[in-house]
């Protein structure tokens, strides 16, 4: 059982995106409420609403009837649209009420990591769906179609680019035996932040397969390291593991060369690897040797070209860089230069 303290630290490490997501939901709640207020109910209720908006200082001084008349007529919503808006509002309110629980997932042995993570994101993703429904109705769309945007889950595959940028972060507590990242790659888009708080023996290089040019990947046994997530741009995943696992960080903002982006600590001996859950020893050993290869490549490229002594940045790549390029090619990390 990962300690509550570690989960708390993991939540803290994603406080930025957590607050951004919740704020956006809360702003939307207020907006939908006020839209409903303004566009439902009889025309005669408008002065009362104006009076209550104007507050007590205006009492006896500003005539709400006249004030309301200034701001023009509204076209009341049809019942069906109102109903759907209210449902959408409920979805948003429920997310507000759920608070931090929106960002927590707890896995048991035998659970599929990718399925649970996707399900959690799909649940939070209903917020995006609800907002879409509201917009559709406000721009004169059909209420029935609008409703479909938030009934059921709304998995990340359906999110727009802007929605991905506001992706809700997740803190996943997971037993080491369930730390199978198969399929996770496709969830790492936009600004997603996933922190895996791992308990018990775990595959030593579990996150290695997730390293692609634009993804921030961190494996560590030191919870303080999680703070680095807040500096990442783009998708990021981190695992807090027992110290028998490899420690490394791949930071796309580190610089253009592999040496600048990848830092690898001690790599455990592949012989210590045991079968865990669905992860065979062979697969775990493969991940370890890939990490080892990347480590030696990164150390080879960390040449002093960055200190400017060469002075001419446009020259041919050094042999070490060419070696790195080949290795990267093998590791599916070909276009490191384009990530930003």
């Amino acid at each position: 059982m990962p300690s509550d303290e570690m989960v708390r630290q993991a939540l803290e490490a994603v406080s930025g995106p957590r607050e951004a997501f919740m704020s956006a939901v809360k702003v939307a709640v207020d907006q939908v409420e006020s839209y409903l207020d303004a566009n439902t109910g009889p025309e005669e209720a408008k002065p009362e609403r104006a009076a209550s908006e104007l507050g007590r200082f205006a009492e006896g001084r500003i005539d709400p009837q006249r004030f309301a008349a200034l701001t023009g007529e509204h076209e009341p919503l049809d019942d069906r649209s109102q109903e759907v808006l209210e449902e959408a509002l409920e979805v948003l309110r429920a997310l507000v009420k759920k608070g931090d629980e929106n960002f927590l997932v707890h896995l048991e042995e035998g659970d599929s990591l990718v399925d649970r993570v996707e399900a959690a994101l799909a649940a939070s993703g209903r917020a995006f769906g609800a907002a879409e429904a509201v917009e559709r109705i406000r721009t004169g769309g059909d209420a029935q179609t609008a409703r479909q945007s938030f009934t059921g889950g709304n998995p990340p595959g359906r999110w727009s680019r802007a929605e991905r940028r506001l992706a809700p972060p997740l803190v996943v507590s997971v037993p080491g035996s369930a730390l199978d990242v198969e399929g996770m790659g496709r969830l790492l888009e936009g600004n997603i932040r996933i922190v895996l708080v791992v308990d018990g023996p775990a595959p030593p290089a579990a996150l290695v397969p997730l390293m692609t040019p634009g993804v921030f990947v961190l494996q560590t046994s030191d919870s303080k390291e999680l703070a680095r997530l807040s500096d990442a741009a783009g998708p990021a995943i981190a695992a807090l593991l027992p110290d028998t696992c490899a420690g490394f960080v791949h930071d796309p903002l580190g610089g253009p060369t592999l040496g600048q982006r990848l830092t690898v600590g001690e790599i455990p001996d592949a012989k210590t690897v045991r079968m865990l859950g669905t992860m065979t020893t062979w697969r775990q050993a493969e991940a370890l040797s890939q990490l080892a290869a990347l480590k030696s490549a990164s150390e080879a490229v960390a040449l002093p070209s960055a200190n400017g002594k060469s002075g001419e940045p446009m020259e041919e790549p050094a042999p070490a860089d060419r070696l790195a390029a080949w290795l990267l090619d093998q590791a599916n990390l070909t276009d490191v230069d384009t990530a930003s």
Partner: protein
Amino acid sequence: MSTCSLLALAQSEDRDYERADYEGVEVRWCPGCGDYSVLTATQRLLAEEGLKPEETVVVSGIGCSSRFPHYMNTYGFHGIHGRALTLATGVKLNRPELSVFVVMGDGDCCSIGAGHWLHATRYNIDMVVLLLDNEIYGLTKKQTSPTTPQGYKSNTQPRGSFLPALNPLEATLGITNASFVAQTAEWVPAHLYATLQAAYRHKGFAFVRILQRCPHFTPDIMNELVTDRDQVQLLMHDDGINAPGLDKVFENRRVHDPSNLDAARRLASDSQQTRLGLFFRDESLPRYDDLRRTTRLTAEERIELLNEELALYAV
């Protein structure tokens, strides 16, 4: 307050943009004005970075250069003389998710707005800040500006500017917490573009002084720099601003590591040599907009808290 509303997100469609998507009303600068190329480069940058016109705000003061936002098809704020940075600060504190560009003239930024320039640099709020420096007051017809070269004649100092010109790079680099300082020239489009791109990608207050010709009032001021490439030195570094092919054009080059503040200050204050490139960049410095983010409350949450607060004063 921290962010946009989900409702705003819901309308945003995924699409690509072209330069033409960012063109505003018909441009009315003088023929040959250096501001044109800055406008073009900015529009190109926005298209290439895929910035949504509705999520981009261009803020300016008053001056020829400050007409800039009208010529962009984004949200724009053509404010008052010298105060653009204060408006931009308000926009960013309230809506951190918007991309903000600030365009100022040399009188706008370095004279009437100098106080805000100093403080905005220190706030280090994430925005791109362009100083369009033609070394003269353009709109008001040729008065001396703080950056007018010493001895240069104008309508207010007809026997020549009395004092040595204020150096905006040196000044900015002297301000605590300055995080990005670069210089480029409007007549070197490749370098201009690369500089704008680096400034946009910088997380923090990206200050770019753009040398800008005013063919009407100061046609001669930058002549030599334009015609004699050797008069301009290009700053080079892997971490600097690297426009493809420029190293072939500029013979006069120098390696400068933009993480070295002392060296940056030395190079910037050298009045013998005009330099283009990235003088300084440090993304690790604190950002006021980051530090001031708060989480929004719903109206109901606010009432609950307010009632708790009022209870402390109950009698």
